[in-house]
């Protein structure tokens, strides 16, 4: 019996060895194309070797999957990780410089839904392969990472990253799910102060607030919407969070919620629960979004997450 087991073990080891010698299974492109997040089926000729990213979140996903060397072009706003800044710049968000992209002769362009109406078609008409990501919710971010893994031959790396992110997400929600409605503070997230803008339902920030155990005071609004100062005062938020770090005058929203006299009577200001978060982390639908969730959780429920 013992001997048999031993043989069996040997057999397994042998298989393992064979598997290690064989070309890695994930380094092939799925045949029949892959459906992107805009519902388009994209055919790939082989594993992409020259990738252009049209959004900072796409760049972060590519680098997180270890595709550093295959990324040949990024946008002006791709500032993370540090190595992304050394890549060739192919334009801003909306202004894709077509000739720079073509000059890089990429075999994959990673776009977003923002490019749906214009740039995507223009690039495809020049015979380029475009794959679009459109992650809104956290689940869709995970899906996007999986898709990028699939088309770049990094299936295992993507699965590993997704699992890691899921674990960190459930570590937060395990603690917040059991909270009663009274234990969930009213949260006001400010994206800009003039006009006063806030994420309504259906946005990633709304989802982050919910998962972190808070209640978004702008739940009745949809998408990123204008909100009146009156409505904010009436909702009397217990926590106020400003997104900072975007362009010039980036900390103005934070200054606004800290100093605006008419917000002085809110619960958040009286208890000094006014915070700021980096929008590069909290706003981008990339791998760092889970870090944003943890930060939201610490800010909204310091008593639960103080040690983290």
């Amino acid at each position: 019996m013992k001997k048999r087991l031993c043989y069996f073990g040997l057999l397994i080891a042998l298989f393992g060895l064979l598997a290690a010698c064989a070309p890695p299974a994930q380094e092939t492109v799925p045949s029949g194309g892959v459906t992107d997040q805009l519902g388009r089926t994209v055919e790939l000729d082989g594993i992409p070797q020259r990738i252009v990213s049209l959004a900072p979140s796409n760049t972060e996903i590519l680098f997180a999957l270890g595709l550093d060397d295959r990324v040949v072009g990024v946008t002006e706003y791709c500032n993370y990780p540090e190595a992304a800044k050394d890549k060739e710049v192919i334009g801003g968000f909306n202004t894709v410089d077509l000739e720079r992209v073509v000059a890089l002769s990429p075999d994959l362009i990673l776009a977003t839904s923002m490019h749906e109406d214009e740039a995507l078609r223009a690039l495809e008409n020049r015979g380029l392969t475009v794959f679009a990501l459109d992650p809104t919710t956290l689940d869709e971010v995970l899906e996007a990472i999986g898709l990028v893994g699939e088309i770049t031959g990094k299936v295992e790396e993507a699965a590993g990253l997704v699992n890691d992110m899921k674990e960190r997400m459930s570590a937060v929600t395990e603690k917040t799910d059991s909270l009663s409605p009274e234990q969930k503070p009213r949260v006001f997230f400010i994206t800009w102060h003039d006009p006063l803008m806030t994420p309504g339902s259906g946005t990633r920030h709304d989802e982050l607030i919910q998962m972190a155990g808070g209640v978004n005071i702008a739940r009745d609004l949809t998408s990123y919407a204008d909100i009146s100062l009156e409505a904010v005062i009436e909702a009397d938020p217990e926590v106020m969070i400003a997104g900072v770090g975007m362009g010039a005058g980036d900390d103005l929203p934070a200054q606004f919620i800290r100093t605006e006299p008419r917000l002085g009577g809110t619960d958040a200001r009286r208890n000094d629960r006014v915070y700021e978060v980096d929008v590069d982390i909290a706003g981008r639908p990339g791998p760092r979004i889970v870090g944003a969730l943890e930060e939201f959780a610490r800010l909204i429920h310091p008593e639960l997450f103080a040690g983290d």
Partner: protein
Amino acid sequence: MTPYRTGPSLTELPVPVLPQRRRRIYAIIGLLAALGGVIVFATTLGSVQIPFTTTFRLLLDQMPGVDIASTWQSTTETIILSIRLPRVILAGIVGAALSIAGATYQGLFRNPLADPYLIGVAQGAALGAVIGFSLPFQWQGAGFGIIPLLAFTGALVTVFVVYNLSRVGKTIPVTTLILAGVALGALCSSIVSYLIITSGDKMHGIMFWLMGSFSLSEWSEVRVVLPYFITGVTIILLYARSLNVMQLDEEQAQQLGVDVEKVKRILLAAATLITAAAVSFVGTIGFVGIIIPHIVRLIWGPDYRFLLPLSLLSGAVFLILADLVARTALAPMEIPVGVITAICGAPFFLYILRRKRKVVFF
């Protein structure tokens, strides 16, 4: 001291002035040559560095009967032939269309402030485009999307409504037409503003369209715009003489045998058609349609038989150069071309205005 002079007296000096007519014909020939030169020049420049000789040989290779062994990469060919050239050509067509439409409107309305957007073309097109952006589905045919199609429809419908609102019996009083155009345009603009603030994540796309840009021009767009452009321009040029006569009183023009109402209808339709076609693909580009005809008028005079073709050519040259600045000045970022047309156009216009200091004819 007595003044002492040799040579012929002043009255005997030969007049070094070409007859007006000849001077203008030379201007047309000169501008045609300039247009050709500007097209080649603008195609050689871009955010990616390509040697001038390569571009030149590549362009020469496209001429019928010329065959040059290609030493360039296929990406270079894509950049020159399917990114830069269609963009340059489209900029030329749009510049020409807006300028000749502007000149036509100014002549029709006998109003120096008339521009191609005066009677609601731009606002109607913007409304159509924004509705296109808000639609939950995408449609594509003939190489372009639903947005240019709706913009074009919006422009034509708006002008049609303006026209019918201002019709009194069989005549179209110019003042009523302008007022109706301004009012309906304002209505369209306010609806556009409303749709923008409720558009959520589509907002960036809308703003980009409204600012006007050639950045994603393609041959398919050139092919769609060209028939409207050629038809409209031909009609306008055929009625140049009538426009001259109409610069008098409408009543006098009528007495001189011009069917004023008919000419008005035809010219309105032609100018609107080319403006709408131009606007629907590249958005609203300001300043060209108002400044170019005035500059031409100040330099070469108000005769519409020359004013129209000269505006056409100058407009094409001007917008190609403006777009060249827009795409190269801050490359790889792009400046909205409307910003360039205003920054370059306005001071140059003021300079001409000051230098000439003569009565501006309309």
